């Protein structure tokens, strides 16, 4: 029994971490009033950027330098997801485009781009197996059964985000932007800057989730299901009622559910995977029934803000 638990929990964390990164990033984003449905695409871009970096580095040197082996994928991943966040902000905040449409396009883009590039790299590598050889790099991110250092980073980020939103002045102002941008604007808060920063930092955090998925969970690039993880991360945002600290447990819990589901025959497995979505739906309904202010979505979530509009 103990052995089972000792095996199970680390694996639940391994499966749950992409969800934690994704949901933390999305919470930060949504607190600024941006409903970023591009999270699955951003995670994909983060993953492929990191993977490409790792692949190119690994195949250009004979001996890996531990520092570079870690920093190159991380930096590539952050750069990729930074660009995606910037694109989202430019379209929705500056160009005032519809957030749902922009987000969905970004998911389509990210999924398409990452899978295409992944496929090209795999073909170029001319390996016998249909996946991308990054076996040396992944060792710096964990061994597959244990979470690895990036998991602690993820938990740290979630806790910091929680504290930031709750206890800092900037966090308060960010929440004000998400609740009612007109009021925040009148109070002298730079709405545009807050939306940009929150969304871009949020998507960089989410991008790390994609990197974690490849480097620590699947440990290779072989038709990854990052989009499913991304949508699940958005579900967790609702499930935890916009609280990153609770998301640590929720993500690991959902991760545990995924681990459990792999032990069951096909079919029952699908039922297990249904659970998170149903539970999230129920939470969404209950929260809207009870109408407790602190549990509700940010009031201006999904709405564009244009100062001159009445």
């Amino acid at each position, binding site marked *: 029994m103990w052995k089972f638990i000792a095996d199970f929990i680390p694996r639940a964390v391994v499966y749950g971490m992409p969800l934690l990164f994704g949901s933390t990033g999305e919470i930060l984003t949504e607190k600024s009033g941006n409903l970023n449905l591009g999270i699955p695409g951003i995670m994909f871009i983060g993953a492929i950027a990191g993977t490409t970096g790792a692949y190119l580095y690994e195949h250009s040197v004979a001996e890996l330098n531990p520092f570079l082996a870690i920093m190159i994928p991380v930096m590539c991943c952050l750069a990729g997801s930074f660009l995606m966040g910037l694109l989202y902000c430019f379209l929705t905040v500056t160009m005032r485009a519809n957030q749902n449409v*922009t987000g969905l*396009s970004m998911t389509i883009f990210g999924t398409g781009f990452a899978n*295409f590039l992944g496929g*090209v790299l795999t073909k170029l590598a001319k390996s016998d197996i249909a996946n991308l050889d990054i076996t040396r790099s992944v060792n710096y991110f964990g061994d597959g059964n244990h979470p690895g250092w990036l998991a602690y980073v993820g938990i740290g980020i979630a806790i910091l985000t929680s504290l930031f939103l709750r206890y800092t002045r900037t966090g308060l102002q960010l929440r004000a932007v998400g609740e009612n941008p007109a009021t925040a604007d009148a109070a002298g808060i730079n709405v545009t800057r807050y939306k940009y920063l929150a969304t871009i930092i949020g998507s960089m955090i989410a991008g790390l989730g994609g990197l974690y998925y490849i480097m620590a969970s699947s440990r290779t690039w072989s038709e990854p299901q990052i989009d499913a993880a991304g949508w699940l991360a958005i579900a967790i945002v609702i499930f935890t009622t916009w609280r990153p600290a609770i998301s640590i447990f929720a993500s690991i819990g959902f991760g545990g559910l995924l681990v459990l589901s792999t032990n069951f025959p096909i079919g029952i497995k*699908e039922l297990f995977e249904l659970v998170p979505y149903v539970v999230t739906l129920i939470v*969404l309904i209950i929260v809207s029934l009870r109408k407790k202010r602190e549990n509700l979505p940010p009031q201006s*979530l*999904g709405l564009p803000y244009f100062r001159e509009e009445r």
Partner: protein
Amino acid sequence: MHIAKRDNLPVWKAWLIRGIAIIIAISLCGLITYLFTKMNPITVVDKMFKGLFGSERKTWKTVYQVACLLGISLAVTPAFKMRFWNIGAEGQVLIGAFAAAAVMFYAGRMPFFNDPGVSMEVKNTIIFPAMMIAAVLAGALWGFLPAFFKSRWNTNETLFTLMMNYVALQIVKFMVSYRGFKNLWSPNGTAVGMINSDLASAGIGNFTKIGEKPGTQYLFPIVVVAVLTVVLYLYLRFSKHGYEISVVGESERTASYAGIKVNRVIIRTMILSGALCGLVGFLIVGAEGTIAANSVDGRGYTAVMVSWMSQFNPIGMIFSSLLLVFMQFGAKEVPMPDGVSLDKNFANMLMAIILFFIIGCEFFINYQLQFGRHKKREV
């Protein structure tokens, strides 16, 4: 620099701006394709054309794909016009398809439908409406739930419909893969094969046997969607319901002051939206004769784009879906050096680039940039 809302841009100017954006986007896509394939863009387009319209059968199939995407786009439009962000078309179509497939399957197991004495036409006259009703009801239920909670308790509809997509997906995955059902649905194999193919009168409940020539099983869905396009255009444009939908979309407050029962309009429109999605699900199952977890294959999300980029105009949607289908399915026909072929992922990437441009160009339609100090009157 100063940004101001435009009063009213003439329609032709708005479409001119969109046209320019699309042309820039397509040129960019051509450039990207060139970088990967090193092929003359005209050759690429030619290959895509030959792949999609090269033979009669291919043409049928391509038009059918356009019809599917167009049908789903039409289905989501009433809800969008109401500013109800229904991104649940994926789930609504899938659950509709599933219901149709279930009816088709279980009817195929009933003695009446196995009776060789009864002619194929009679069987299909009974089974098609039954499948359609089941699909429409299932889709309507999937549309009703988010609308009900939205109108009652203001539950966020985007998140709700998003979750409902996955509920539908997992239900279908479960039903087609669970051993108990799988043995029923697909006696041998992992995927559900052609439903009812084992019956002597193969093709009960799918359109294969309606047309004689290959490809003509796609005729029925194409006709239905064509009719739907016209009907929906008239409904949104000229009916009282259509008017109510656009008023609610403009401002819920105005609507309720004008005596429109907003909640009722929301629920009614979402039921309609879901039901139409279910109908498309029925058409897909009827034409393909099978159901799988990827029967809808992301078209529910693409349809959101089509509807939005055509500004909820059914006529515009015909061209948008044609463009997107051309790219998505055409890319597969283009070979690349090194044995890598352009694939659906590549097409999706290009499609998203076009979408980004269209999304961006709306800004120039709705707003104008004024440089320097503006001397004209202050509005």
